[in-house]
């Protein structure tokens, strides 16, 4: 046990309790169902805009793509045009594989000593972080897209199709959604990795644990409402549709667990721009990935160069010619 994960764990418990007791005990449905979600959305959008525009106005003076393959060279040497792109097209494909397939994570390796008398250092391919990250991000995406059913009426066909595919196993009633299970397992895996892998644990801070606990609690409350404690889904949709049509209503008979879920989602949204979760936007702006490796093929001129006022030797000689001649110094131009 250490405070780096105990503090965020306690924090998430507290957030849950604040909303749950606030609704069940103090009747603050309006606060947790209407005011906080609107405020969180505003904070999310404004914060996101501010962060990205901050990055956009930062100087990127050097062309620093990471080269992960053979660069463009002599005509008979085969270039790796995705891992070491020299054109915009190559960069585009590289960014696609980075954003949708986490390509650089796929190449993750671990260094370890052989446990024998030779005790040699070796590097091996470590794929489980990539597997966990893919499972987590894609299941989370599916869960978010599925939630569009609460914000659209009628529900669009693509959301219906996604929901149907997600429940294709037809286990139980209401039927099990695969994405929910995968999300929960993947977050657990990423959390346990941080706690039990000594090297990762050493570099993990409270800011790494907090979103994991928060997402775990969000997924947990959502799954709880769907499969165990039950909730009046029509009431829930009345509330969410009220939010998106700016006619907020508080439905009868929807309990504290739902408001706790909404509150924690709101906290997550408001937290994103202030945290490492901004890698959501940051991945597009990574200079080591989104630049073409054409350092030598193209002349890169510093974009904020300005004409520098110089004082040439000829001008210097014009200024001091007579004095130089008097002192017997050689001059280029005599009179």
């Amino acid at each position, binding site marked *: 046990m250490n405070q780096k994960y105990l503090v965020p764990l306690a924090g998430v418990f507290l957030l849950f309790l604040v909303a749950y007791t606030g609704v069940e005990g103090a009747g603050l449905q309006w606060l947790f169902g209407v005011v906080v979600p609107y405020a969180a959305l505003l904070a999310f959008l404004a914060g996101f805009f501010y962060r990205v525009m901050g990055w956009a106005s930062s100087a990127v003076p050097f062309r620093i793509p990471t080269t992960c393959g053979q660069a463009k060279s002599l005509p008979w040497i085969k270039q790796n045009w995705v891992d070491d792109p020299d054109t915009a097209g190559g960069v585009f494909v590289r960014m696609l594989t980075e954003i949708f397939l986490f390509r650089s994570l796929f190449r993750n390796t671990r260094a370890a000593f052989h446990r024998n008398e030779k005790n040699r250092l070796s590097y091996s391919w470590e794929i489980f972080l990539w597997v966990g990250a893919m499972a987590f991000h894609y299941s989370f995406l599916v869960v978010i897209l599925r939630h569009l059913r609460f914000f*659209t009426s009628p529900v669009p066909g693509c959301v219906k199709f996604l929901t149907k595919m997600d429940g294709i196993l037809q286990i139980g009633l209401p039927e099990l959604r695969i994405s929910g299970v995968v999300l929960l397992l993947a977050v657990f895996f990423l959390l346990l990795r941080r706690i039990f892998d000594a090297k990762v644990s050493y570099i993990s801070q409270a800011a790494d644990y907090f979103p994991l606990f928060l997402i775990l609690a969000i997924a947990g409350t959502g799954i709880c409402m769907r499969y165990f404690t039950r909730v009046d889904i*029509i009431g829930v949709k009345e509330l969410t*549709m009220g939010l998106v049509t700016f006619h907020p209503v508080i439905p*009868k008979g929807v309990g504290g667990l739902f408001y706790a879920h909404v509150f924690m989602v709101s906290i997550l949204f408001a937290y994103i721009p202030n945290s490492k979760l901004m890698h959501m936007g940051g991945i597009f702006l990574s200079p080591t990935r989104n630049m073409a490796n054409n350092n030598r093929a193209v002349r890169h001129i510093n974009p904020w160069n300005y004409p520098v006022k110089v004082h040439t030797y000829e001008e210097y000689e014009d200024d001091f010619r007579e004095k130089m001649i008097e002192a017997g110094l050689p001059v280029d131009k005599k009179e």
Partner: protein
Amino acid sequence: MSKNAILTGLVIFILAVLLPFWVNLGGTAAAPKPEISARAKAAGRCILDKYDMRADHMQLLGKWRNSVVRHSNRLYKTADGKVFTMSLSTGKNSCLGCHEGKEKFCDKCHNYANVAPYCWECHTTPKEINQ
């Protein structure tokens, strides 16, 4: 990356996040009201309380299915002692026997909340087959 390209991407992202708002512009939040048949109105009460029924009916039906198919136990006793046949669509005492018309009752909320239960892959109403 040029600032304009970043700004374009950012605007697209913000519009995508706000999708639920502009898709529903001018819409209302009204939830549909399932039609309560005359028979159901006369009975006054379903087998559970209103909010329990709303939240739990799918799980109850799942239990009924297992009870009927696996244990051939077809009788359900409510809290106030009434006995019902465990059936979704067969007989006057079944769910659809009282709540007449799947599309007037079940589908109203199911469509609103994007719920497509697989009940109807086996249980179909004769009217639907004729269509």
